Each structure stands twice: as C-alpha cells, then as structure tokens.
C-alpha cells in the first residue's frame, strides 16, 4: 500500500542498497538497547564458562580468556528495531578457538548464550562455528563500553543483533533449541535479517 504523501527522500545510494536487509535503514550512530539497567562488570570479576547442559566444560578468567587467539571481524550489523550499521570493527575470540582451547567438538546442535544480567538468547551451534561468530572484547580497537555489552559480548553479525548477547559470561550447549529472553517474548526463534524474521510467526 503506497502511503499518501510519503516519498523516499532518504533512500540510500544503490551500491549501499544491496547491503541493507528488507525493512532496515542505514544508521551512522550506534544506538543502545537493553531490557534492564547496564551491569558494570569488572574484568577482575569476569569469567566465561562453556557448559554442556548444566555441566561446566571449562571456565576462563579475564587473563586466561585474553590469552586465546584474537581475531578481527568487520561486519555490517542489523538491529530488529530497523537500523543497520555498516562496517563495525570488532576483535575477539572466535567460538571455534574457544572450542579448540577446551579440546572439544560441539556436543549438540543448539546453544544458549548466557549473560551476567540473566539475559539469554538461543543460536544454532552451526551459526556460531566455522568463523561465523566470536566473543568480542574490543570495538574499534578499544575495550567495549558497558552500554555496548563490555567487557565481552557475543558477536553473531549475520543474525539480528539481539542474538549478539551483551555482558556475556558463558555459552551452554543444549539438546533442544531453547528460546531465550526475547524469543520467549515475541521475537523470532532464529532471526535472519535477510528473511526479515523479526517476530514469532514470521516465515
């Protein structure tokens, strides 16, 4: 339905168009969204735990985690609130390298990302491995600020950005695909921006 009197005055140039998923607009800033207050997690208190169900597989403190191989990823990110930001530059530890350090292959096909504030989000394990995702420690070369999820956040740039959990403190392999915080509150179980999977019931 064409809206009377609405014209696409801010339509981006064509070369950028191909990088913007349906229903998104290009944002130059970096908006902040979260369900609650911003936790201030000190790196001395920080830890990261890999779990299979309730069972811990391996736990790292901040120093140990920072000793793992660091990888750079520069990616476009897409928030379900409709903004897309190009070329965000992160550094962190690939999920592949976390698994290698723990000496395991992924034990199940599903993963829950766990955060210090109790937030959770589910991601199929295959969307985290093969270089697709990392635990980011730096944004544009600097420690990630608390409002953007520091000290460490998940980065799964090919899915809507609520999947890139802030204030991450663990990954838990689960037997089934278990909906996380927003997935239980009306948001899509998978969240592919190119298929516009925003809300429960989207194809």
């Amino acid at each position: 339905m064409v809206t009377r009197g609405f014209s696409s005055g801010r339509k981006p140039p064509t070369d950028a168009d191909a990088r913007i998923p349906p229903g998104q607009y290009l944002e130059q800033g970096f908006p902040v969204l979260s369900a609650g207050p911003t936790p201030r997690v000190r790196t001395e208190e920080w830890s990261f735990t890999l779990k299979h169900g309730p069972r811990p597989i391996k736990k790292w403190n901040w120093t140990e985690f920072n000793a793992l191989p660091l990888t750079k990823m520069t990616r476009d990110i897409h928030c379900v609130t409709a903004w897309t930001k190009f070329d965000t530059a992160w550094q962190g530890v690939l999920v592949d390298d976390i698994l290698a350090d723990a000496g395991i292959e992924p034990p199940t096909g599903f993963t829950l990302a766990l955060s210090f504030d109790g937030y959770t989000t589910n991601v199929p394990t295959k969307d985290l491995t093969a270089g697709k995702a990392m635990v980011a420690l730096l944004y544009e070369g600097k420690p990630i600020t608390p409002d953007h999820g520091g000290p460490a956040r998940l980065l799964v740039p090919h899915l809507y950005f609520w999947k890139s959990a802030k204030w991450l403190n663990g990954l838990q392999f689960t037997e089934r695909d278990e909906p996380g915080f927003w997935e239980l509150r009306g948001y899509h179980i998978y969240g592919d921006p190119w298929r516009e999977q925003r809300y429960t019931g989207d194809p």
Partner: protein
Amino acid sequence: MSDGPAAQSPWQTVTITRIEKRTPRVTSFFLRPSRPFAYRAGQHVDVRLTAPDGYQARRSYSIASAPEAGETIELAIERLDDGEVSPFFHEVAAVGDEVELRGPLGGHFVWSDSDGGPLLLVGGGSGVVPLMAMIRHRAARKSAVPATLVFSARIWDEVIFRDELIDFHDRRDGFDLVLALTREPARRPADYSRRIDAAMIEQSMVRLPAPPRFAFVCGSNAFVSAAAQALIDAGVPASLIRTERYGV
C-alpha cells in the same frame, strides 16, 4: 480454487481518525485498526510507510492509550528533525489517511493491574508514552495498586499529557505525579527543578506504602542510563528494573 487459506499478513491498514497536538514537539495520532487489536499497557507497534517507488520506512512507537480505550489506539509521536517517519506524521498525515501497522509487540516492558505493585514509573520526555498506557490502564480498571510517576521534561509546556496526569494525581487514589523540570523552576510544591537523581527517587518512593515490585524506566538512552543508575543508588534492586530506550 486455492491450495488453502493464504497466510494473513502481519501488517494491517489503520486509519487516522483524530490528530491532537500535545506539546510543541509531540502530537498524538489516533488510529483505527481494520482488524481486532488487543494489547497490553506498555507494548509498542511498528508503523510502515511506503513510497511510490516501493521504498519502505518503518519505526517502532509505543502505545499511549489504555487497552480499555476502545476502538482506536493512540500513538504520541515526537518530531525528530532528521527523522524519516516522524516528519511525515507531523507535516503530511491528515485525518482519513491510512498507514500500515504491525503489532502489538514486546512482552517485557508491560504491566497489567493483575501483576500488582507498587509501581515505580520513571520517564524522560516522550519516554512517558508507554508509562501513560500503564497509568491509564490503572485508572480504567479502578486499580488500587500504588503507583508513582517521576517524569522529567525540560519545561512545563513540554510535559506530555500534563493536565491528564495532574487530574489522575488529584484523585488521591494511590497515584502520585512528581515532575522534574530541567530548565525551569518547579511549579507544583513537591516537584523538582533538576535532573532525576538518587535522592529524588528515594524521596519519591517514600510516597509508596512499600518498596516497588516493578520499576519501569523509559526515555532516551542517556536518560535511561542515568535514571536506572539513580534507581539502583536509591536501593531498587537491578533485577526489578525494566528499561526501554528510544533509539537514536
């Protein structure tokens, strides 16, 4: 012949039935859905505009009306000068126009009378909108849940829903309004003329008969960061605080 029922689009056409200016920068648009639309106080909708060349813009707006309000839903939209959708509403939209709407959306920043309280509501500027839906819902249900709204605006004339909020306050039925004006002297005896801080939250909570069971904070990112910290410093457990930040 068809292979079965077509999947119903999540989008529906809504008609603008009334437009009411609230403050110099905020105008309410009353929309009549074409299909039944049940929602909870605090939820939002996505609005989609389509240009003749197919280009679409969508934005999320909180619902200001109570679920009990009847056949129209109210969106109170602030004009953002560099915006794409809000200038359309403020400059182009007229009664009788149609836009597309999806929702209701969001299952976290919501409150119902049956959830109980006490309720601590903290809003900055247009961040009051989803809180207004909760306050109107409380009034419509004649709820006895104690509730306090601490509402920060720059000046008296930018206090969205001011007369209605003062009217609710004057009923003395357990709802208290505390205004924090940041660029003008306070006008009501218990109001403040400074930004929201921990001391103000502590003093406002004294009006409640018991510590809040729910705290909702909504506004710009900078506002929500500062106000949520003020609540924590005033002793509100972080786990009780639900936040909603208005994008950019």
